[in-house]
């Protein structure tokens, strides 16, 4: 139907403001790319596979950081996923109605605490505890590559623990929303067939499976880019090791630590290229996550 002149003006004016958001996303990608040209041109693909990071001789290989980011995020998800899903299930399916709101609020409070406070707490409170636990580990396990090296407290394991705590609220709140939206008929059908409560919950989880994977990936997106807390507890040593005891390094941490020290352009461009990769990876992960969550919600809106 024909729209009035006022409507057109309104639409275009507000639309220009909306376009800023779009331009920002494009602008971030473009600027990061433009300001990492030196490094991209010089190293090409070698940048991603090189293990040597030596600003003095101008040799930049980002593999240890990529490894550190992926490995710490993977370990964090390993810890956070069962807990986050447990929380989502407890709050949406099991808890007494009275507790539901407060528990949801409290668990989501974990997302409101600043990264720097996690870091501070990690350094001064959690590290000594983790170190004691590391010392208690049986000798037989200490000989495996996963626990080799001196128990310092700081290191990959410690980073994974902090990260997993930080990621839990993101995964659990989305998973909870998905479970809440699973049609009641799904559960009733299971109960009607004589299912136990857990079996009925499994049916609900199965129904929302894609969305729950999306929730986990949303957490992954957070873990990949997390900076301060990880920088403070991971040890900041660029090495590739499966050991949870080993001090390692992540992409975000190396940017945080070295960016202001980058004396020459190549060094700066190399760091920005790491940022560019982080940008691309997180967009990719978030995209898939949103897509999964979106398709699940679409499916739930139709009667099942």
């Amino acid at each position, binding site marked *: *139907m*024909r*729209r*009035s002149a*006022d409507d057109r003006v309104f639409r275009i004016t507000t639309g220009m403001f909306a376009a800023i958001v779009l331009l920002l996303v494009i602008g971030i990608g473009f600027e990061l790319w433009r300001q990492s040209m030196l490094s991209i041109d010089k190293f090409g693909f070698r940048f991603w596979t090189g293990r040597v990071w030596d600003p003095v001789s101008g040799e930049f290989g980002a593999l240890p950081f990529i490894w550190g980011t992926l490995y710490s995020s993977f370990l964090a998800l390993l810890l956070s996923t069962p807990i986050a899903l447990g929380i989502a299930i407890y709050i949406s399916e099991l808890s007494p109605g009275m507790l539901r709101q407060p528990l949801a609020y409290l668990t989501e409070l974990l997302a409101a605490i600043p990264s720097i406070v996690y870091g501070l707490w990690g350094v001064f409170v959690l590290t000594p505890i983790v170190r004691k636990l590391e010392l208690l580990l049986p000798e037989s396990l200490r000989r495996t590559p996963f626990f080799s090296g001196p128990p310092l407290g700081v290191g990959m394991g410690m980073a994974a623990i902090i990260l997993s705590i930080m990621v839990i609220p993101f995964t659990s709140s989305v998973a909870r929303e998905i479970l809440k939206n699973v049609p009641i008929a799904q559960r009733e059908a299971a109960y009607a067939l004589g299912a136990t409560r857990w079996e009925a919950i499994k049916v609900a989880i199965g129904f929302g499976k894609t969305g729950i994977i999306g929730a986990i990936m949303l957490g992954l997106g957070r873990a990949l880019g997390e900076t301060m807390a990880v920088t403070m507890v991971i040890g900041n040593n660029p090495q590739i090791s499966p050991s949870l005891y080993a001090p390692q390094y992540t992409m975000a941490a190396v940017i945080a630590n070295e960016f202001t020290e980058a004396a020459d352009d190549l060094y700066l461009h190399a760091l920005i290229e790491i940022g560019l990769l982080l940008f691309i990876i997180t967009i990719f992960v978030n995209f898939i996550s949103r897509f999964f969550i979106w398709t699940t919600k679409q499916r739930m809106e139709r009667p099942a």
Partner: protein
Amino acid sequence: MLTAIDMERFNAALAPSAAALESMNAKISVRDFDFFYGSAKVLHGITLDIPDRQVTALIGPSGCGKSTFIRSINRMNDIIPNARAKGTISIDGRAIYSSDTDVVSLRRRVGMVFQRSNPFPKSIYDNIAYGLRIGGMRNRRELNNVVERSLIRAALWDEVKDRLNESAFALSGGQQQRLCIARALAVDPEVLLMDEPASALDPIATTKIEELIWDLKVNYTIVIVTHNMQQAARVSDRTAFFMLGRLVEYADTKTIFMNPKEKMTEDYVTGRFG
């Protein structure tokens, strides 16, 4: 069933309306009007004349198109995406769907009251003054006058005159609806559209609204959608019966209820379906 009082009103209303019919002073004329939501045709070739300063009721089972029709008269349907109109509706001889119609000024001439009262989250005063203010009126004295006059016309003045600055949400449901009527009257429309204005109200509040409609028709052309046939019989001069997007019968209210020509109308008004 019509009560004795209803009948009295009925007859009182009939005398002038019969006379008016002779000259058929049409305020709104509708010719071959179709309406579509996307590809679904919801109104089929509506043709009728709505007389000036009378109450015209639109009745029919839900989904019959009566609400769509009333919302076409002030082009409220414009805000629905993919909605499309065909044919003409003219007010005072000017086609409202022509390309030179200014929808905004059309809506100031054709006021509307909705099924659910929708006061703005503002004070009673600011609700009434809203239409004037967006029209550019700033003079406080003038605003005060219009607010008072509109509230008096909507029979709400005595109940709220001491608390004009309170939130409109503090009013009861019936008062809120009369506030919305006053708000519509404040911009001085010629036509007042009412889309089931009493359907969410209790009987006492409903009576007040009906009395108000009765009083308002001296100055305004009123079109009212109602699913309550007794209400249509009580308040209207003319009645149009819609079904499945078609206008089945349109005549004097008395004729529609006492002596309908169409079998379908008779079945509906006697409660055989609907």
